[in-house]
């Protein structure tokens, strides 16, 4: 049996089998080493997969050799290969980062459970991304969500509010999942298949009430999962009270995966290859997704300005950034879709680095309120530097990935003649200047000579190195965009969009 042939299954099977063993291992270092090794193995598989797809085109893999539509198909093209690579890369960085951070933030006895849950969460996200079977999406989504609820709740040792945050997330997430599965049920009823490619074929010319309601349920269900404004209410608390490394991981990956599912359903299933939209897709894009995206960009950014808690501020900023991604998606053009995918990737880099920097502050100073950041540039220069660079990237300063995203999005909006949204994009990034600038100013403030702050040590190397890898990626991929832009463009082309409607 050739291992390369089985490559698509490996990133899922490996952690699914190996993760449960983590809880049997002794607490602390050994379980951490074990989980980290697995995460690197997965990263290796995903990188290979991306390489394969980039060189040889999409891969279709039949699980257990059962042919679709009966069996489950794993289908990897550039779009999900890029996302798989992203999730596994973030995972491979978050695991090493977690060791010190988690030791400080949760009960040591719980560490094996923590690593097992984080591995399972990652597996779920990878599974959602890789599968070509609609029901399989639901299964993996629940695997990742259930472990996420547990991970968020682990923040309770630091702050009891993590429990209510996790419970809120549980309720909202379950509603989302239920909606999604109801939508799937309706579509299954209409088409008799669960394989995505098959479903697309059978939906052509089948635009009835049932299909439309199926579409609506899937849209709202996924909207909840990806924290689309105004369905985002679970997100700020969940991100704010989860352990730092969990927040870094979730912010960089979880909402992206839900967004990816939405893209898949919109453009691979409802947008048939012959250009006919099914389930009023174009009307939804233009009259629901675009306004919601724009309002989300603004309202969430404005709310972020007034947060006193840096983690919450970044969480609201995430909601706003999801607005950008939805805006690109709503344009219904290739340029818009590739802008969305580039931003999915780039946003993961910046938010990952930012939340890791906050984690370093929590580790040394014990909190993530804005006051903990006073004079940080002198006290923890490497952490502050990472925060500043990735914060500038979040704003969209040239020579960072944030600028590349914004540039592509602007180009996409101008291309379809939507120049009002384009001005709203830049206007909301100006709000980002305010909320990021506020923290940077406090970090750079010179020490008060009468009342000097106690000096603290810089965060441990095990936390700094993963964080700075992301920071360097923020700058490097802002200059060398082959990896992100080329792949995203290729991926967008693969969706074979017929540009219409949005103009």
């Amino acid at each position, binding site marked *: 049996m050739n291992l390369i042939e089985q490559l698509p299954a490996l990133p899922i099977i490996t952690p699914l089998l190996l993760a449960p063993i983590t809880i049997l291992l002794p607490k602390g270092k050994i379980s951490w080493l074990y989980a980290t090794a697995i995460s690197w193995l997965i990263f290796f598989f995903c990188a290979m997969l991306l390489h394969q797809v980039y060189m040889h085109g999409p891969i279709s893999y039949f699980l257990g050799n059962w042919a679709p539509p009966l069996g489950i198909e794993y289908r990897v093209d550039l779009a999900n290969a890029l996302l798989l690579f992203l999730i596994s890369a973030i995972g491979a960085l978050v695991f090493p980062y977690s060791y010190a951070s988690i030791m400080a933030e949760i009960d040591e006895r719980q560490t094996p459970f923590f690593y097992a849950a984080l591995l399972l969460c990652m597996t779920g996200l990878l599974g959602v991304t890789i599968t070509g079977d609609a029901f399989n999406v639901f299964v993996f989504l629940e695997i990742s969500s259930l472990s996420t609820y547990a991970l968020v709740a682990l923040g309770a040792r630091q702050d009891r509010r993590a429990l209510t945050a996790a419970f809120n997330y549980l309720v909202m997430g379950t509603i989302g999942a239920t909606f999604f599965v109801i939508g799937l049920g309706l579509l299954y009823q209409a088409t008799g298949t669960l394989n995505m490619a098959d479903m697309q074929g059978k939906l052509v010319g089948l635009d009835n009430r049932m299909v439309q309601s199926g579409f609506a349920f899937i849209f709202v269900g996924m909207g909840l999962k990806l924290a689309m404004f105004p369905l985002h209410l679970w997100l700020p608390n969940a991100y704010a009270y989860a352990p730092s490394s969990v927040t870094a991981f979730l912010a960089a990956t979880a909402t992206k995966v839900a967004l990816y599912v939405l893209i898949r359903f919109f453009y691979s299933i409802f947008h048939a290859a012959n250009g006919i939209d099914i389930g009023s897709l174009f009307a939804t894009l233009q009259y629901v997704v675009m306004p919601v995206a724009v309002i989300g960009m603004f309202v969430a950014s404005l709310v972020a300005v007034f947060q006193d808690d840096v983690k919450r501020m970044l969480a609201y900023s995430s909601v706003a950034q999801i607005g950008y991604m939805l805006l690109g998606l709503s344009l219904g053009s290739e340029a818009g879709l590739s802008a969305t995918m580039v931003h999915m990737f780039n946003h993961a880099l910046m938010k990952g680095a930012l939340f890791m920097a906050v984690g370093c502050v929590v580790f040394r100073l014990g909190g993530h309120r804005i006051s903990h950041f006073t004079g940080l540039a002198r006290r923890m220069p490497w952490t502050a530097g990472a925060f500043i660079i990735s914060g500038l990237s979040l704003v969209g300063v040239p020579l960072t990935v944030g600028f590349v995203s914004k*540039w592509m999005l*602007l180009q996409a909006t*101008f291309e379809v003649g939507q120049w009002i949204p384009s*001005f709203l994009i*830049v206007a909301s*990034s*100006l709000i980002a200047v305010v909320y990021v600038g506020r923290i940077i100013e406090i970090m750079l403030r010179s020490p008060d000579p009468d009342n000097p702050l106690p000096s603290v040590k810089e965060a441990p190397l095990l936390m700094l190195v993963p964080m700075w890898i992301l920071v360097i990626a923020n700058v490097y991929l802002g*200059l060398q*965009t082959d990896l992100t832009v080329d792949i995203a463009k290729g991926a967008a082309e693969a969706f074979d969009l017929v540009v219409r409607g949005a103009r």
Partner: protein
Amino acid sequence: MPISAEHAIPLTLLVPVLGFLAIWASDKSPNLREAATFITGAVLLGLVLIIFTAVGKGHTPGFILLDVIDGINLEFKVEPLGALFALIASGLWIINSLYSVGYMRGTNEAHQTRFYMSFAIAIASAMGIAFAANLFTLFIFYEVLTLSTFPLVTHKGNDAARRGGRIYLGILMGTSIGLLLPAIAWVYAITGGGEFTPGGILSTHMDEIGPLLPVLLGLFAFGIGKAALMPIHPWLPNAMVAPTPVSAFLHAVAVVKAGVFSVLKIVIYIFGIDLLSATGAATPFMWLAAGSILLSSMIAMNKDNLKARLAYSTVSQLSYVTLGAMLATQMGVLGGAMQIAMHALGKMTLFMCAGAIYVASHKTLISQMRGLGRTMPITFGVFFIGAMSIIGLPPMGGSWPKFFLMAGAADTGQILIIAVLIISSMFNVIYLLSIPVQAFLMEKDDTSSKPKGAGKDIMIDWNNLKEAPFWCIFPPIVTATGTVILFFSAGTLYNYLLPIIRSGL
């Protein structure tokens, strides 16, 4: 020459960055640190001269630094206007550095290493702006310039400096991200590229933009906040909280010059003069610039603080360049281009004199400077020359751009613009010349015990001078001499700049 102009272009960016590292490394030894600044400055000037002469021979050296997003490059290509701006910036940077050393040591400022490091990055980004081959490159270095000058503006670190810095950064970043960036993205979306092309690139895409052309021009005119076209000017007076060498740098060497240079370059190479004069899209902005000239002159007259008065004078003088661009005639554009050079020297002189006055006497208000000319005759004499150049009186270089602008206004039949130029010059006479005149001729306030009008007091007391240190006086003398030289060599400059309008035909 061993280095070709093509290779000199990337080096103009690399050398200041190396200088930045050298300054950083020699933090502990001020003399070594200043030596690093001067060596960087000298090498940079040499490199720019290589490029400048190559461009003078009709070459357009180019260099591609990076391919960022496919087809969108960080690319450089030098044309006469950019070469001129680079020469002004790199030349005046050396003078400014000489002066900085005198001033910063004279006033014992803190954090001097950070100060010189920021300067090195700022000059590198000015080079990037000067040589940019497309809008994308221009924008990137424009932003780097804003960010690198921010620590300079807030140098003093007190509340006033922080407030001024916030306004500086807020307005410059706000306009550039909010207006300039969408304008650039728009141009790329319409034309598929933003290369600076002789004759402009928009003329062949008129059906896609049509009546929105003035809107696009407005996005550029206001988006380039560094050009300080009213009402985007408040950052400039607010940046006055910075030490004087920084003000000189902002006003003469790099920052505002980068702004008006960008406006001029975009009008010539993106819109094209012919397109603008054919569509009349620039007319509203021409009037806006004219209004800006007069209004800020009037504000300047009411300022008693010398630096504030000079700041508003800069706002007024910058609008001359914008006006030249918006006249959309060959003479206007040439006048605007010359104004960049002439104003740089003149305003540099005035700012350095203001700093010298502060170092020597700690006086900032004009009303306190009465009679000061008798103890600081050299400073005020030099100030006089600089002021004459700004006003536009021969034999100072500043008279040429005014002449060209009037010729340009006459070309388009805008008689009112000529009137604006004349009135503005008269305003300049009032608010600039009154300063040295009062300093030389009027009584000192604190000597009121002596009998008034006594003949002896009018005389300069050569034995009892209280001039600023040599390194605060020498640089303004150099620039003041420069304004005189430029008056007589304007023909060379004219011929050098001619290709920018000829290629538009």
